[in-house]
């Protein structure tokens, strides 16, 4: 039982991270209809930029976090204006492929600018240690990851549900033309969604990198957001968070209990296996819309 609780607890922390990343991607899908495959690469880029600010420039941490905002704004403008605006009205594959190619470009640029394998945050973003709670012990990184994601998601939800900007975002998600008719600047909403998503990705990157170190491989963690989105449904932010948590826990449990029988590494592919099953059984996810189409 203790083993089970331990697995669930660590799965919860990782799942929250997946969920947070997935929520950022869903925010972009909902506003501009673009599925951002480059998200995983942006996670790495954000972590690397943060490393430069923190370690190379030696800035205090809160300054670094604030400086992630202009970084997000800049990247969002570049992506939105230079790449996605010209692709408006192009078929789905073009947009999908554009974000994939963008991801490759960002990732290889990251490798070129920050060569070498492994960097750590100095001073550490989250002080190492562990907390005991009954039979279960948590690493401080896990607890901090969970809490930061929770707080960020809370702010995210507040902006989305309680502010004028959030109302505009929801209106744009509903219908571009209607939103435009109500004097909402749809293009600006796209940009806001991208800024928020890139900032969220950077925060995720910093959290992931404080566990695994800054290197190009952490984009693999970012890729787990995709199964989370499919699990929760493409159009639902709540679904994405729930999907992320569920996948984190399920993958951890599968890794803990089944690895012994299949020879290890199940934790890494489990999200994709679950995703394939979900796609076959309930393709629109837990909270997604089932599309009714007309010719």
């Amino acid at each position, binding site marked *: 039982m203790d083993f089970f609780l331990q697995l669930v607890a660590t799965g919860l922390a990782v799942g929250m991270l997946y969920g947070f990343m997935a929520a950022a991607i869903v925010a972009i899908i909902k506003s501009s209809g673009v599925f951002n495959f480059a998200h995983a690469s942006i996670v790495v880029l954000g972590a690397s930029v943060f490393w430069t600010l923190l370690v190379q420039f030696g800035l205090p941490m809160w300054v670094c976090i604030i400086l992630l905002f202009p970084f997000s704004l800049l990247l969002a403008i570049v992506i939105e204006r230079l790449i996605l605006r010209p692709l408006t009205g192009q078929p789905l594959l073009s947009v999908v492929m554009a974000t994939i190619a963008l991801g490759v470009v960002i990732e*290889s640029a990251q490798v070129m600018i920050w060569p070498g394998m492994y960097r750590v945050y100095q001073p550490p973003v989250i002080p190492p240690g562990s907390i005991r709670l009954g039979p279960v012990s948590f690493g401080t990184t896990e607890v901090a990851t969970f809490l930061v994601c929770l707080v960020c998601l809370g702010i995210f939800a507040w902006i989305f549900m309680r502010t004028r900007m959030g109302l505009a975002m929801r209106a744009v998600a509903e219908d571009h033309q209607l939103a435009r008719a109500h004097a909402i600047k749809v293009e600006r909403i796209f940009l806001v969604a991208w800024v928020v998503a890139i900032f969220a990705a950077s925060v995720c990157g910093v959290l992931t990198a404080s566990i695994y170190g800054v290197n190009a491989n952490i984009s693999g963690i970012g890729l787990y957001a995709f199964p989370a989105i*499919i699990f929760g449904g493409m159009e639902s932010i709540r679904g994405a968070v729930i999907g992320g948590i569920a996948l984190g826990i399920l993958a951890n449990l599968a890794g803990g209990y089944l690895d012994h029988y299949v020879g290890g590494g199940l934790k*890494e592919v489990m999200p*994709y296996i679950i995703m394939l099953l979900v*796609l076959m059984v309930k393709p629109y996810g837990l909270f997604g819309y089932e599309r009714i189409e007309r010719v």
Partner: protein
Amino acid sequence: MRPCGTFDVKYNQDMSVVRTRFQWVMLVVFLLALFILLPLFASGHWLAVTNLIAIDIIVILGLNLLTGYCGQISLGQAAFMMVGAYTGAIAASKAGLDFWVCLPLVIVVSILVGLIFGAPSLRLKGFYIAMSTLAAQYIIPWAIIHIPNLSGGVFGCHTPPVKLGSMTFDTEREWFYLIMTFAVILTVIAKNIARSKLGKAFIAVRDSDLAASILGINVFRTKIIAFSICSVYAGLGGCLFAYYIGIAHLEHFSLLNSIWYLGMIIVGGMGSIAGSIFGAAFLRLLIEFTAKITPWLMQAAPGVSEGLASGIAPFTLGLVILLFLIFEPRGLYHRWEIAKSTMRLWPFPY
């Protein structure tokens, strides 16, 4: 666009791939140049590049039928290649089968795998299909690593040399003839699939699957057939690749490779067989070009050279794909058509 003054009076003429006498002449000249002049004058290195291009052409012909014609995005082409490569390598090294006996086996296994990962397309389209093929890119390597007795795990699986009668294929030139023969035959098959009833059904499903189903096309069956064809092409390409380099190894079939294959059909032109050939040649030569200039760049910028060496090729390729998407989404094939129609009227365009 067809040449001025050429009129089709029979259905056969309308459907034919090679329409005019001039096209026949050009085709024969091209094939002669390809099979006689190129191996005569090209050095070993360039023959090796040509061989890789030919394998790429085989692989992305399938991808173009699936993605370009049938509209199903596949992010797992390299994984499907991996299946073919390992099937061929395992059948030869463990069961002692001949290369030529392996090929039908590769086709059968590829069809099965295509069925498994195409099955979600029963209820899905668009992003979702991309996702299920992305899953293939993770699940297949994992499965292969976990049967180390057969696949050799992370060390890969060696392949025996290919024999035809008493002849062994071991030089680049001999391989050139083998691979190029495959590429030409498979191109002809792909071209014929594309213009047949099945190919028209693919296009109908791509443009609107709902409308296609109203027209009486069995959408799921069409998609599954597209997946199987794509996976067979990938499997054959992968099998040839494994035998060509002598080993089937996971590292040659990464997600990045799948992305380059998609990039090739975008650069070449989606929904055109000739485009596949242009795209494969263009991107493979670009990879070759970046490999050539990297040492020179590293001398020019010694400070960042370590990362530059590993990052420059994907950076350039990604950028080129992005630029093509933004400025010429119809690909090189479209440019080729423009060039042809310009040439027809030259030098008096009006």
